């Protein structure tokens, strides 16, 4: 079934040959190299090579029709780095697009990346967007989800029904110079929850509806946010599972204020109910829909400096609460600046995280602390055809008894990168990253990159 959509590709490529007016290719090659020593084992060498390719062809016969492709392939030149195999590849998207001269109407068919209302998805199918009369906007998509398999499908014998189709859309209304309201919808699969036979350990059904709002009465105030509802036809979980049967999946709101040209503030509030929020997950062992309770966070941030100022600062504070774990408070600041004549940019940041202790899984009365301090500094520099970047991040942990730290009290990473723009269309660079492995062993990673652009069209957008 899936292959049907790939059939569109040769058609598009053929038409590309037939007209072939404006085609551009962006290629990016990454070669990584590192050695890893696990205590008690031999040192291993890893060297994955990754190739990204982007193709944009415009004016296919008609000005309004274009073709866009983005994908990658990767191969381990030394030992295997991923559980999924030594060679992997993916077509991120590949679609034919029609854009009308009026109303921002666009239709896309093929493999598409969807970003509409509640859905961020990769879909083999079609999408349609348009601005309508009266300030309405409309978008919709439908197709077969691309990545949807869970690791262990045996927990759900009727899994296929739940993932055979995905569709959704959003209807928005813009109120001139003042506000915007939106209503969006998404559904996975053709079998809504209760039709599945009996009680399921994991109910992956996802049918969600969301309302979103933006209010901008003037340039000083911008309120926006959304509430997502779980509207699947669900069986309530038994009370003794403690799971949360709430129908609100998410509240996510932001209030941005411009206090004066040099000072802005932003307040955020988020609340998520795990069962409703995680519905549709493909990794239930980690994003467990049966986790009891909720997650909530409140944040405030101040932004100092106008967009054109030489310095920009952020002071922020965020409180989080997860019922099954506890509270955390993250606060600190960042400052970035530039020395324009010297093409030099820099930034520094300092954050402190106070957090409740976590218990060792399985052992109830033994706890370890998660509190830590984070320090970051970076510089970028450009001269003629050379670019250089340096970045250092240091974490200091209050409690080295955290099992993830393997007895170490701190963690650092230093990145140095040198780039050379050989021709307007070719840039090569080399990065050296000194950091630690997942076992907190020191590790040095080398990365070679080559970014190459060729074609007969001007480069689209930014990259």
């Amino acid at each position, binding site marked *: 079934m899936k292959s049907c959509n790939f059939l569109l590709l040769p058609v598009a490529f053929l038409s590309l040959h037939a007209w072939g007016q404006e085609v551009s290719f962006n290629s990016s090659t*990454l070669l990584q190299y590192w050695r890893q020593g696990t205590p008690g084992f031999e040192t291993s060498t890893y060297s994955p090579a*990754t190739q990204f390719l982007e193709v944009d062809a415009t004016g296919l016969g008609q000005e309004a029709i274009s073709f866009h492709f983005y994908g990658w392939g*990767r191969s381990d030149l030394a030992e295997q780095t*991923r559980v*999924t195999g030594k060679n992997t590849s*993916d077509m991120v998207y590949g679609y034919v697009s029609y*854009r009308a001269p*009026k*109303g*921002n*109407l666009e239709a896309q068919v093929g493999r598409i*990346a969807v*970003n*509409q209302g509640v859905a961020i998805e*990769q879909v083999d*199918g079609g999408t*349609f*967007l348009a*601005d*309508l*009369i009266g300030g309405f906007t409309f*978008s919709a998509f*439908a*197709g077969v989800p691309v990545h*949807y398999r869970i690791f262990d499908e045996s927990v759900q014998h009727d899994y296929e029904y739940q993932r*055979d*189709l995905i569709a959704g859309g959003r209807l928005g209304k813009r109120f*001139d*110079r003042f506000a915007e309201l*939106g209503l969006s919808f998404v559904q996975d699969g*053709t079998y809504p929850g209760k039709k599945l036979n009996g009680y399921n350990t994991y109910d992956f059904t996802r049918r969600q509806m969301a309302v*979103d709002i933006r209010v901008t009465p003037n*340039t000083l105030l911008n309120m926006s946010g959304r509430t997502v509802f779980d509207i699947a036809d669900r069986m309530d979980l038994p009370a003794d599972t403690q799971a949360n049967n709430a129908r609100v999946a998410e509240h996510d709101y*932001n209030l*941005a204020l411009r206090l004066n040209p040099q000072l802005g503030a932003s307040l*955020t509030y988020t609340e998520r109910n795990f069962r409703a*929020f*995680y519905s549709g997950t*493909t*990794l239930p*062992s980690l*994003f467990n829909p049966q986790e009891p309770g909720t*997650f909530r966070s409140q944040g405030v941030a101040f*932004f100092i400096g106008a*967009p*054109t100022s030489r310095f920009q600062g952020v002071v922020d504070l965020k409180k989080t609460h997860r019922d099954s*774990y506890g509270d*955390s408070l993250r606060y600190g600041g960042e400052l970035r600046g530039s020395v324009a004549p010297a093409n030099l*940019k820099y930034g520094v940041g300092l954050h402190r995280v106070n957090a409740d202790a976590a218990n060792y899984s399985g052992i109830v009365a033994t706890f370890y602390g998660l509190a830590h301090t984070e320090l970051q500094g970076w510089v*970028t520099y450009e001269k003629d055809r050379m670019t250089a970047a340096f970045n250092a*991040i240091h*974490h200091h942990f209050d409690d080295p008894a955290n099992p993830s730290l393997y007895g170490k009290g701190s*963690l*650092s990473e230093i*990145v140095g*990168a040198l780039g050379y723009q050989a021709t307007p269309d070719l840039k090569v660079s080399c990065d050296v990253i000194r*950091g630690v492995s*997942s076992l907190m062993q020191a590790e040095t990673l080398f990365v070679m*990159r080559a970014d190459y652009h060729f074609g007969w069209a001007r480069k*689209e957008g930014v990259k």
Partner: protein
Amino acid sequence: MIRLLRNALLGLGLLGGLACGLLSPEKSFPNPHPSTLGMGQPVCTDCHEEGLKEGSSMLYSSFNHSPAFARDHKLPANRDSATCATCHPQSFCADCHTGKGVVSPALKLADRPDRISPHRGGYMTLHRIDGKMDPTSCYKCHGRSNNQTCIACHR
């Protein structure tokens, strides 16, 4: 299954047709954006009018790529995708919002410390702390797709 997909596409086409009749007569946004921009985060109000224009709900100052915009880009991204698309090919977004991950954004942007990244710096270790405090922030990117790396340890 195939019938379903066909019906869905048909429905989409129908809705599309309906929408065409109701289509706004405003000119579509140019693609690509008519003015090429320098490196670095753009300030729209350098070129575009600051306040709200009559007959438009487009507030350019709210699109200035300030640190605040970068942090909260999800809000305009959900609503104003046609605006984003004038400058950003989808590949730009896909490097962070990918379906199947291959290179972490921190590595892809190793030479761009001035850019935001969902995570940087020793993340194989740090993620165990961040993930404990707030797994819901990871769900957007790793909960439905892009978890080929995670299943090595989280099954």
